[in-house]
């Protein structure tokens, strides 16, 4: 006993303090506030207690405003406090130093949220494979929200600006309070009935504008989550602001940070779409031009034996249709399609060039057996002494065949028939 250390009071208080602080670190403690006294310095002294025990506690005046600890305290409050254990050395008083205090209810809400989230996640309700894709250009979209809230206004104004072709169908429901969860579920079921019985719905937006954690709590309802999971229409959840996450957000096919953002997800930008249409039209124009050019190339080769494959009136017809199309195109679509109409004029030109009379002007001619309407393409059809008609650009020559030379094969010379 004589070997045991001798401490001064100051020493033992300091060492006990160090031991307590090391042993426990920071933690949460739940209890009821009593004996609350706010000192002129702004520090709050109180007792935290449960059924069997109590502990002295202090919350020093918050250095910064707006961070957790600023909430007003009152005797009788059930709170969840975060802090550490310590000893006030001058008095040897053991106490809890709180750095953050929140109503216990809120903390429990958070706990319940995490529990439900983990449960539904393990059941597969958030699985990416179950997510349905949103349609690129929806025609009819269901909205489940309050008829008088901010969300509906935001959504309508975004859709109006971006893509007014969408038909919006509101399935009204309250979005906070005790009855809200059931009303929301009923609205989802009504939307599914509408989808299967009346007109197909391409997407469903469910949500509300910003509010307190309690206001948004209905979107953490388990039955609602299951209804959304079972919904065959692609669901977009849009609850509160960017920072608010709810169970609905996790179970929906897509989470939008706000109602406006949800509207942007379903409504393609009109300007983008116009650009896309223009691009498609250009592809069509380009492909058609290429087809005509190709045709013209083969036509040019076919001109060698002086016979054209396209009868004149057909070419005329095609050229005329092309002209008509060009005109209606320019008329209807105006400036944006200017470039393309110029291209079209070029096809018309190409088709005109393939008019058989043009090669005739260049010195080629067409030959017919007298009385026939189809130009000759093969000598085999021409007997010696037949009367043939040769058409030039400025007139016709009538002659009698004296000799027909016919190639037998590429390297075998030719056979000659004479009168």
């Amino acid at each position: 006993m004589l070997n045991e250390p001798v401490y001064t009071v100051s020493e033992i208080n300091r060492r006990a303090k160090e031991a307590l602080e090391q042993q426990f670190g920071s933690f949460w403690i739940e209890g009821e506030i009593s004996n609350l006294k706010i000192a002129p310095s702004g520090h709050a002294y109180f007792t935290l207690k449960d059924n069997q025990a109590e502990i002295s506690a202090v919350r020093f005046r918050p250095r910064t405003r707006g961070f957790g600890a600023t909430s007003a305290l009152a005797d009788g409050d059930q709170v969840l406090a975060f802090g550490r254990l310590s000893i006030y050395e001058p008095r040897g008083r053991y106490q809890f130093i709180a750095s953050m205090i929140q109503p216990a209810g809120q903390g429990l809400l958070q706990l319940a949220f995490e529990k439900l989230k983990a449960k539904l996640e393990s059941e597969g309700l958030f699985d990416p494979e179950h997510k349905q894709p949103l349609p690129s250009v929806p025609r009819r979209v269901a909205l489940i929200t309050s008829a008088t809230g901010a969300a509906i206004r935001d959504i309508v104004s975004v859709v109006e600006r971006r893509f007014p072709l969408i038909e919006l169908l509101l399935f009204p429901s309250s979005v906070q309070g005790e009855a809200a969860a059931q009303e929301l579920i009923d609205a989802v079921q009504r939307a599914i009935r509408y989808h299967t019985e009346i007109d197909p719905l391409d997407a469903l937006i469910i949500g509300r504008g910003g509010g307190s954690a309690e206001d948004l709590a209905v979107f953490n309802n388990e039955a609602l989550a299951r209804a959304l999971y079972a919904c065959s229409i692609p669901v977009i959840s849009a609850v509160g602001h960017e920072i608010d996450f709810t169970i609905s957000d996790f179970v929906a096919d897509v989470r939008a940070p706000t109602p406006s953002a949800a509207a942007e997800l379903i409504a393609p930008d009109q300007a983008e779409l116009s650009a896309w249409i223009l691009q498609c039209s250009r592809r069509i124009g380009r492909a058609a031009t290429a087809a005509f050019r190709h045709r013209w190339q083969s036509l040019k080769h076919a001109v060698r034996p002086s016979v054209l494959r396209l009868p004149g009136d057909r070419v005329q017809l095609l050229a005329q249709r092309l002209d008509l199309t060009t005109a209606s195109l320019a008329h209807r679509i105006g400036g944006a399609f200017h470039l393309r109409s110029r291209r079209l004029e070029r096809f018309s030109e190409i088709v005109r060039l393939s008019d058989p009379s043009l090669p005739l002007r260049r010195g080629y001619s067409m030959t017919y057996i007298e009385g026939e309407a189809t130009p000759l393409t093969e000598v085999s059809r021409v007997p010696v002494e037949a009367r043939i008609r040769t058409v030039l650009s400025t007139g016709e020559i009538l002659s009698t065949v004296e000799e027909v030379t016919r190639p037998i094969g590429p390297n075998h010379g030719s056979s000659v028939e004479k009168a």
Partner: protein
Amino acid sequence: MDQALKRLEDIASKLEAADLPLEETLTLFEEGVELAAAVKTQLEQAKTRIKTVVENASGLLSLEDFDLS
């Protein structure tokens, strides 16, 4: 609308891919031009429609006009 856009894309791909007869090329081309014009007009003239879906006591769904103001 979605269908018209798909058809437009379809026409463009067909014209690009195949060596079609001249007549068919023209027909497709004309259809494409008409479709593009129609879709563009539709876009320009559209106005957002919004209705409320209500359910009566016997469970019948019907549409009512919705007024934002």
